[in-house]
């Protein structure tokens, strides 16, 4: 299917009253969650997931995807106004955004970040439209060995490129793989790790794990802490938004570079929008003539990372939709949601479900446009959301988590699972074991085990099959190279400072 007829099909599917409504709900929830510090898009998506079970797959996907990119728009608001990242992906925006706000240029900063997010997103959607189907066609020739190797690469990338220690990332991935094996083994029907608990036979619930690790754990960490100081919040009026001509001319190139870096990072398995934003910021600092302006309200310091993080969020759909390999933990949850709806993304996806793919693409355009329109005139409303005190917000979030998880199977057992993973996530945070790779491992686990066993069945137990096949060998070589590069301590120390700042929440 070529681009034009694809788009026509997409417009047919995504420009209906229902699809537009769910797109609107998705981006608004995403924006809202993005604005609020302390809760990220992952927790938001898991909270909405039970609701989407009642929708048709197309509306569900449009809405869930909207939350992800919506959060990228919203996150910068808190970064700029309060020096607190709304989501981890916008942590870097605070470095120059907050000084701008102190200089009375908050409105301009918010305007530029919105435009940058929009342009970055558009850039990546064009890439998605042109490359995802091509990649899908290439991947048609993949066999189990290739699938196993590329999933391994994704997991290794997720654990090595995530923040902090490589070993800890790898432990997290391995634990996720292991946890995915609880319940009945799909190949032999053998029951594993259920300890006689009947509810565990079908395996653990993805939503319960995600809400525990990212929702409850995050609140346990911040509960009882002093309220954030919202007195510093400035009123932002629409006429404060208009940037000077100099602001605009200084932003074009950084936005473009950011979009390029973000798209590249987004396509890589395992590297998420946080890394994209940091790389874009570092790039701007390197090419700038006057480096001393950074940290004191340089406009390039907000436009490049904001363009990069949204580009990366959109580009992450390329491997997710064409190969079924999620680019980061957020995409992994989305992949899990698709599988719950009975859609398994794989190379055949483009020929079997062209309406879904193109509908989603068109909904991205619509959603980004909606965000642009929502963001600029309503900026005052979003700023006021920041003033909701956490003493009301936290109990409300916990309440929604409980009811939402309960509603998946109408069983209190899943709520108990949330408690367990809340505690696990809390201690993982304290000891700096990244929780996102665990979730990726959990989602990829069953597929990986099956492909691993199938590949060895075909090769009659010959482990060389993973290396004899050139594509598989290339993926494995990349995995090994990644581990070696990241394990080199000198490299790690150099990037240590940036990593720590982003360590706070999920990617």
């Amino acid at each position, binding site marked *: 299917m070529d681009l034009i007829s694809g788009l026509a099909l997409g417009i047919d599917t995504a420009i209906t009253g229902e699809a537009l409504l769910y797109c609107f709900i998705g981006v608004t929830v995403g924006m809202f969650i993005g604005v609020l510090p302390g809760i990220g898009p992952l927790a938001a998506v898991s909270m909405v997931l039970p609701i989407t079970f009642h929708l048709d797959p197309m509306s569900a996907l449009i809405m869930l995807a909207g939350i992800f990119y919506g959060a990228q728009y919203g996150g910068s608001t808190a970064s700029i106004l309060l020096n607190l990242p709304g989501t981890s992906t916008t942590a870097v925006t605070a470095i120059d955004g907050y000084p701008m706000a102190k200089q009375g240029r908050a409105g301009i900063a918010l305007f530029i970040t919105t435009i940058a997010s929009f342009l970055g997103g558009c850039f990546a959607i064009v890439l998605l439209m042109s490359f995802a189907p091509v990649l899908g066609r290439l991947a048609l020739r993949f066999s189990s060995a290739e699938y196993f190797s590329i999933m391994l690469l994704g997991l290794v990338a997720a654990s090595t490129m995530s923040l902090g220690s490589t070993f800890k990332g790898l432990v997290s991935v391995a634990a996720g793989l292991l946890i995915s094996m609880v319940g009945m083994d799909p190949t032999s029907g053998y029951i594993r790790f259920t300890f006689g608990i009947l509810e565990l036979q079908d395996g653990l619930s993805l939503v319960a794990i995600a809400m525990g690790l990212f929702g409850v754990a995050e609140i346990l960490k911040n509960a009882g802490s002093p*309220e954030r100081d919202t007195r510093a919040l400035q009123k932002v009026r629409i006429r404060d938004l208009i940037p000077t001509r100099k602001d605009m001319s200084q932003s074009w190139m950084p936005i473009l570079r950011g979009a390029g870096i973000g798209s590249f990072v987004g396509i890589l398995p395992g590297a998420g929008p946080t890394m994209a934003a940091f790389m874009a910021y570092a790039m701007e600092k390197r090419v700038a003539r006057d480096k001393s302006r950074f940290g004191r309200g340089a406009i390039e310091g907000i436009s490049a990372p904001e363009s990069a993080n949204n580009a990366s969020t959109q580009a992450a759909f390329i491997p997710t939709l064409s190969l079924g390999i999620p680019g980061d933990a957020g995409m992994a949850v989305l992949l899990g949601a698709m599988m719950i709806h009975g859609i398994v993304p794989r190379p055949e996806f483009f020929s079997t479900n062209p309406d879904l793919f193109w509908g989603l693409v068109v909904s991205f355009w619509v959603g980004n446009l909606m965000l642009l329109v929502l963001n600029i005139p309503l900026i005052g409303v979003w700023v006021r959301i920041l003033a909701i005190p956490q003493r009301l917000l936290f109990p*409300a979030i916990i309440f929604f988590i409980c*009811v939402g998880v*309960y509603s998946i199977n*109408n069983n209190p057992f899943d709520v108990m699972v949330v*408690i367990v993973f809340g505690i696990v996530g809390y201690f993982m945070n*304290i000891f700096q074991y990244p929780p996102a790779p665990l979730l990726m491992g959990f989602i990829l686990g069953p597929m990986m085990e099956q492909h691993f066993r199938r590949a060895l069945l075909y090769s009659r137990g010959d*482990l060389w099959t993973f290396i004899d096949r050139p594509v598989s060998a290339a993926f494995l070589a990349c995995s090994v190279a990644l581990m070696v590069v990241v394990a080199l301590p000198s490299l790690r*120390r150099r990037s*240590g400072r940036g990593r720590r700042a982003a360590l706070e929440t999920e990617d």
Partner: protein
Amino acid sequence: MRARTSLAETVAAGVVVAFGLATIWLSSDFPMGTVTRMGAGYVPMALGIIITALGIAIALFDRSDERPRIVIALKPFAMILLGILLWALTVDRLGFFAASAILVVCCAVVEKGNTWRSVLALVVFMCVAGYLVFIEGLGIPLSAFGE
């Protein structure tokens, strides 16, 4: 509550090792099979070995640039988890409203600045909103007042 960080980190790595060893022990009961036809225990066993090895590696070699500061706010931690647990245990018997009220109160009392008025208002708001969204809207089979 503060702990000596280096010791606490080693204990954490110890927990990882224990987790790995427990996995090995549990999966040794599963059918192993051969490399060609793997049994249900093959991959879990391999993962158990990997996790154990990584735990040992962390305890011995991992030198992170930043020591984590280990401060546990015990009261919010305990109260929130207790609230969730009570909700899960009571929601079927006491009904949606009572269980949710307990949950919201447990979570709200640990936050500074809440008065009994604000907690009450939050309880009423969450119960009504939750009822409308989940029970009326999504048709989740929960009874409002229990059996």
